[in-house]
């Protein structure tokens, strides 16, 4: 029996050699990949073992790390979670980070280069390393008014300070509670994730910046800007405004909202055409201006198909390919392939409000060290200058008229001059409802875009009142 025994002994040696070779492969060759795998919670534990920086709004921490007795030492908690969720995002053991938690992760966890000196000091003083704070530009009252206005609907509100580009509100509904995704209980996180997945609209998607929608009549502001900037038009220039307009080269009959006439005479001043949002007038105006003029103006606003960061990534807005004059006619009233993010819509209003200078929108006011010393402050920068101060004044006059006498009446605030433009965009479902505007018209301190997805009503009925309450919240806040 000894011959087979020796063979068994050798076989055992071979089996064990296999084990040892395999362990070598895992612990040496694959080690780095395994160590850095995003599912390897050791990295997480390490990260959760440090105090993560806070996200601050108006001096208050809206996201902060609280020490616990859990395996993961610090628990991320969100004061007023659902209110700020579209901005803060979450910090989840299972699903990673989203929102500011994601884009400012390096600062918050303390690995950003701007915190290098601090890290070095921690090393020598033996202080527990902790992350830096991110202070946002949001105004709590404005954000609250925005979320309150959107309640029960799918939509977004973006409010900007037109003179700086500061984002005063970035609201999106439906919202969710980031606390529940950031807990330390995987089962609870999964349960909440499934609950969110089951909803018709995923609340984790920020409607304000992550999706673009048919713009409808708010795009007429861009066409009007192109007309005024051409020098051939003033608000008083009389333009054709028939009841029906057959798009050139087609038999398509472009009609006004409710198929109503814009004017008994079939023509009207440009200011009136915008005030009542006359489709036939703007379709023809766009065609008269030509594709190049309309596209140039749109691109000057940033509508060029490419996205940008605020630092949350903003999806690019577009006016699409315009193949023919007929297409240009439809484009000029914000239909066809025109698709804007609510952020982009707010930027249109902001450009008008800031005398034709569009400022770079930004959400992060400053980056602070854990001891609140400011490490980096965002300086306002112009994004573009789509038109002159004079054109801006003319557009302001026209948009003021929209709110005073036209489709935007429900945005009126007593004692405050509000300028705006409504939009009711056709799509496969019920109409989308838009309103863009700013106030006070003579010295604007807030520009706002309100978007209700498939609201079914008109921009004037559904969105303008929300804009009004957001503007009121800002003005009452002393801003």
């Amino acid at each position, binding site marked *: *029996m*000894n*011959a*087979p*025994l*020796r063979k*068994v*002994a*050798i076989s*055992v*040696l071979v*089996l*064990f050699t*296999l*084990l*040892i070779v*395999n*362990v*070598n492969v*895992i*612990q*040496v060759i*694959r*080690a*780095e*990949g*395994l*160590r850095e*795998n995003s*599912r*390897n*919670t*050791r990295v997480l*534990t390490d990260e959760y073992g440090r105090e993560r920086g806070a996200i601050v709004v108006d001096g208050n921490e809206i996201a902060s790390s609280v*020490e616990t*007795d*859990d*395996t993961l*030492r610090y628990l991320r908690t969100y004061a007023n979670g659902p209110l700020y969720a579209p901005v803060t995002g979450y910090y989840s053991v299972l699903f990673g980070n989203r929102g500011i938690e994601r884009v400012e992760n390096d600062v918050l966890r303390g690995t950003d280069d701007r915190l290098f000196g601090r890290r070095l000091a921690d090393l020598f003083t033996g202080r527990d390393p902790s992350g830096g704070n991110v202070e946002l530009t949001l105004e709590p009252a404005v954000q609250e008014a925005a979320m309150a206005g959107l309640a029960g609907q799918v939509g977004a509100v973006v409010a900007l300070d037109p003179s700086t580009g500061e984002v005063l509100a970035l609201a999106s509904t439906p919202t969710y509670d980031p606390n529940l995704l950031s807990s330390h209980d995987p089962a609870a996180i999964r349960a909440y994730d499934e609950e969110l997945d089951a909803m018709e609209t995923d609340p984790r998607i920020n409607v304000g910046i992550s999706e673009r929608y048919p713009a409808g009549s708010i795009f007429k502001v861009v066409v009007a800007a192109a007309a005024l900037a051409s020098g051939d038009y003033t608000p008083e220039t009389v333009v054709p405004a028939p009841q029906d307009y057959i798009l050139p080269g087609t038999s398509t009959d472009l009609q006004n909202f409710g198929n109503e006439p814009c004017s008994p005479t079939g023509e009207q001043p440009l200011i009136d055409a915008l005030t009542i949002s006359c489709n036939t007038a703007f379709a023809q105006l766009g065609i008269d201006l030509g594709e190049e003029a309309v596209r140039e103006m749109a691109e000057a606003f940033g509508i060029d198909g490419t996205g940008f960061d605020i630092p949350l990534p903003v999806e690019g807005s577009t006016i699409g390919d315009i193949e023919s004059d007929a297409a240009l006619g439809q484009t000029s009233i914000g239909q066809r392939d025109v698709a804007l993010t609510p952020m982009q819509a707010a930027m249109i209003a902001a450009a008008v409000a800031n005398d034709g200078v569009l400022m770079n929108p930004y959400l992060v006011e400053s980056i602070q060290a854990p001891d609140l010393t400011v490490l980096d402050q965002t300086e306002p920068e112009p994004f573009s200058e789509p038109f002159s101060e004079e054109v801006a004044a003319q557009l302001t006059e026209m948009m003021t008229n929209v709110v005073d006498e036209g489709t935007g009446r429900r945005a009126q605030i007593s004692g405050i001059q509000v300028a705006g433009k409504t939009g009711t965009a056709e799509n496969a479902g019920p109409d989308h409802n838009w309103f863009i505007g700013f106030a006070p018209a003579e010295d604007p301190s807030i520009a706002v875009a309100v978007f209700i997805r498939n609201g079914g009503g008109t921009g004037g009925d559904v969105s303008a009142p929300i804009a009004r309450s957001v503007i009121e919240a800002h003005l009452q806040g002393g801003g």
Partner: protein
Amino acid sequence: MAAPVNGPGTDPRAAIAPGTAIPTRRGTELLLLGFAVLITLAAHLIIDITVTGSPGTELVTFGIWFSALWLVAHVVVRRFAPYADPLLLPCVAVLSGLGLSMIHRLDIAGTQLGGDEPTSVDAPVQLVWATVGLALFIAVLVIVRDHRALARFAYTLALIGLVLLALPAVLPNSEINGAKLWIRFGGFSIQPGEFAKICLIVFFAAYLVDKRDVLALASRRVLRLELPRGRDLGPVLLAWVASILVLVFERDLGSSLLLFGIFVVMLYVATERASWLVIGLLLFAGGAFVAYQLFSHVRVRVDTWLDPFAYADTGGYQVVQSLFSLGTGGLFGAGLGGGRPDQVPVAKSDFIAAAIGEELGLFGLVAMIVIYLVLVERGLRTSLVVRDGFGKLLAAGLAFSLAWQVFVVLGGVTGLLPLTGLTTPFLAYGGSSLVANFGLVALLVRISDAARRPAATATSTPAKLTDAPTEVVQQ
């Protein structure tokens, strides 16, 4: 490669040379045991200091108890099996010591993270089980003075083995993690399969040594293989069916694979016919294929084995976590108490090897595998040297069962093989496994004592004595 079994001075013929005083090597054993205890206590101390900042209060109690355990074992071996292989016991001591340290480390993992309470207190329980294991070890050495006596109880042991094996399948409430391996009473559960394994190995040895001549008969040659006669296929088919039954009714992939593998290898050793290995392999392949087709739990295991990361949140979670643990450990490991082995599910039992790999690194893990290798090869050498056929087969079966189990478990933990749910002998948390394996080692110690005992005092019959050299010549 064959060096360990052919070392100088250990040749069977040298061992029986007249007039030479055979060294018992008990002093070596004591020295090595002391070394094993030292390693264990050092590990404990390092863990306490790293995790909690100061030596635990129970360290002294543990140290005394653990040292006493091996001192008693040594004294018993000195008295009842003076010629036993001096390496067997130290290997077991260092493995179980390492296991106890790691279990203690995982116990206090909670304290590490700012908690006041240890996560659990399993190490003292395991120490009690080690003590029970030692009692069994002593009992076996005291009662079984001559291993050949066991052959007489072969069929009784077979019956006990089969009953133990079948028990969890028929008892209610035996399921843990999908496999029915447990008998529970009170707050207390044991895994009878571990004991069944030993009973069945004893039976296989007795049965095969009895029938080896018949089973070795060849009918015809095919491709250089001497095929057995068709009617002699009975036993291997029976073992195969029993393994399949274990798989079906207890969903225990590990035990099924373990028992069938042991049987086939013992059959091969007994008959010296490689054809049995081929037949065993074919039966295994057939069984595995059918099982894969029929049972979802087998399919899940195989799928997650092939690509654990694709099932990282479900079936592959454990293996993926184990790989993370090992990968993070790297070459040198995070140091005892420095890693996060508690993140791997069931780190104390099924995945204790991953915990060792994480904290002691590649070097620690390979050292551990080599200790197992030494233990197994010493067992196989005992088999090579012992003079009677039953002892040979029994030692081979026991040693190979250890090797096979370690291979299947570590292969599972490292992703080389599908996960089986077998326990790492001596190392893993779990009373049944520890106690049963102490019994197993007691048998190996007993046989190795017979193997190294000088011929003059050996009790084997002359007929058996002449057997061994003949076989050596044959090879």
